[in-house]
């Protein structure tokens, strides 16, 4: 029996006349890692802020862990952990103190707070740095500390708003590795991101969001399968060449999408296409598998990353 951890129906958020979220529905179940994939401005962070009670909802229904957010936000907050998009660590305190003070907001007695802080610091490989001032930490360390901080109260739901934005590849991979470990241990997670590789790697299910609306929902591989053939040719060339090519490349289940100076050609078997058509006119041809970014492109006609 799958328990619903978050339920949203017709969720709307309007800031000063600007609709940021235009009526979305979704369900998130216990134990899964659920993603919101979309470009900046899609409404992902706004949705997160409504879920963790930072922003009141404008219209619609939203409940977290069985409690509607309009009723008892405080009870919800005791049970969730929030990793914000920007770094709001306390610069005036060292690593360990940051965790102890945060634990205190949850009414945790000192002994328990110390125990949990140690657990988290060891998990995130920060125990040796526990007395370092925050300004001495790298971006990756700060992000790991933020996640550790969010886990202090053993939350039933962990919310991560763009957890690896701004991190170097090494730091990203460490964070992903640890998040996968958390997922395997049964933590329910909600993740927002504009990186399709992050969404594909971590999420069991996700929604694709753009301009305040949900365009598609499903498991990463399902979404790709549903919307596109499995293989892609990425062709770079001049405007004329690409236009000409786009007109000629037709066939069974062959889709094309032109964005700027790149033509994306989707087909079940790209090798067949290469043999059938002469692509020599064009400069670069990249051959790869379809991704969530391609699905986004297909659904909106624009790239996921600006």
């Amino acid at each position: 029996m799958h328990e619903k951890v978050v339920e949203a129906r017709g969720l709307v958020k309007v800031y000063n006349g600007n609709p940021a979220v235009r009526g979305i529905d979704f369900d998130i179940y216990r134990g899964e890692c659920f993603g919101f994939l979309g470009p900046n401005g899609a409404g992902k962070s706004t949705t997160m802020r409504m879920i963790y009670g930072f922003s009141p909802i404008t219209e619609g229904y939203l409940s977290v862990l069985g409690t509607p957010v309009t009723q008892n936000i405080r009870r919800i907050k005791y049970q969730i952990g929030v990793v914000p998009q920007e770094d709001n660590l306390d610069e005036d305190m060292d690593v360990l103190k940051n965790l102890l003070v945060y634990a205190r907001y949850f009414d945790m007695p000192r002994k328990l707070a110390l125990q949990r802080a140690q657990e988290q610091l060891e998990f995130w490989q920060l125990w040796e740095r526990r007395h370092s001032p925050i300004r001495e930490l790298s971006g990756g360390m700060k992000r790991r500390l933020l996640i550790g901080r969010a886990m202090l109260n053993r939350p039933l739901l962990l919310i991560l708003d763009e957890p690896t934005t701004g991190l170097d590849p090494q730091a990203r991979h460490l964070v992903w590795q640890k998040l996968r470990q958390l997922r395997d241990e049964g933590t329910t997670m909600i993740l927002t991101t504009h990186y399709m590789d992050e969404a594909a790697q971590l999420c069991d299910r996700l929604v694709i969001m753009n301009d305040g609306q949900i365009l598609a929902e499903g498991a990463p591989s399902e979404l790709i399968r549903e919307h596109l053939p499995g293989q892609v040719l990425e062709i770079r060339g001049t405007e004329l060449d690409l236009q000409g090519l786009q007109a000629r490349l037709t066939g069974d289940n062959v889709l094309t999408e032109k964005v700027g100076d790149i033509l994306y050609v989707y087909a079940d078997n790209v090798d067949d296409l290469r043999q059938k058509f002469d692509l020599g006119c064009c400069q670069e041809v990249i051959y790869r598998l379809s991704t969530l970014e391609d699905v986004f492109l297909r659904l909106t006609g624009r790239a996921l990353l600006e």
Partner: protein
Amino acid sequence: MPLELPMLKMSYRVYRIWQRDRDIYLNAWATELWPPFVEPLLSIVALGLGLGYYVTDINGMSFIQFLAPAFAATGAMYASAFECTYASFVRMVYQKTFDAILATPCTIEDVIGGEMLWGTTRALISATVVLFVIAVFGLTQSWWALGIPFVALLQGLLFSSMSMVITSIVPTFGAFNYYITLGITPMFFFSGVFFPLERLPESIRWLAWFSPLTHAVTPIRALANGQIHASLIWDLVWMAVVSLVMVNVALSLMRRRLVK
């Protein structure tokens, strides 16, 4: 629909935010603990030694007897005003500390309540230190002087809440200049600290009644000099009533600013 008083939305968690501010203050003990001693000391020595030579009698007291107790009030004023303007603004806007706390079970009322409580605490610390300094100089005339920290507590709440109202509406750090230069500084000079209010021309003397500092200086000076009279209670009532209003205005405006 009944009016929902913002201050009723505060919970015991106000103490949690107070604890955070206190911990950071104690961490910085090397830079924080000695100024409240040194500042009044300098003023008393400079003005007492200097001006006190020329100004020999104010309402039956020596100049230094008149002046020194008022520094408990000014110390309390500056401590709480600066804490709830500059320090709170930095926490709110630059460090995003409030955002972090708002993701926990603490509400905005808890956060701002805690900040105001901390400002009040700093006022209490300053006033108590000044009391100690003036007592050491033999400038307290009676045991009533021990009541000064209690008045400072009320004064601290008043200035903390007033300052928090300002902090809830300023767009930038620089905007505090208006409050400090056009609010705090005139108060400092014209609330009976340096000269009795009777010296103000009658046409503008009534303005001093509107200065929060006046209602702190009057009872504090009276307590230090043992010149208690029943009407001092009205100064305390003035501070209490205005505090009550300011606390609610501050909480309401802060919620509007931060919870969107």
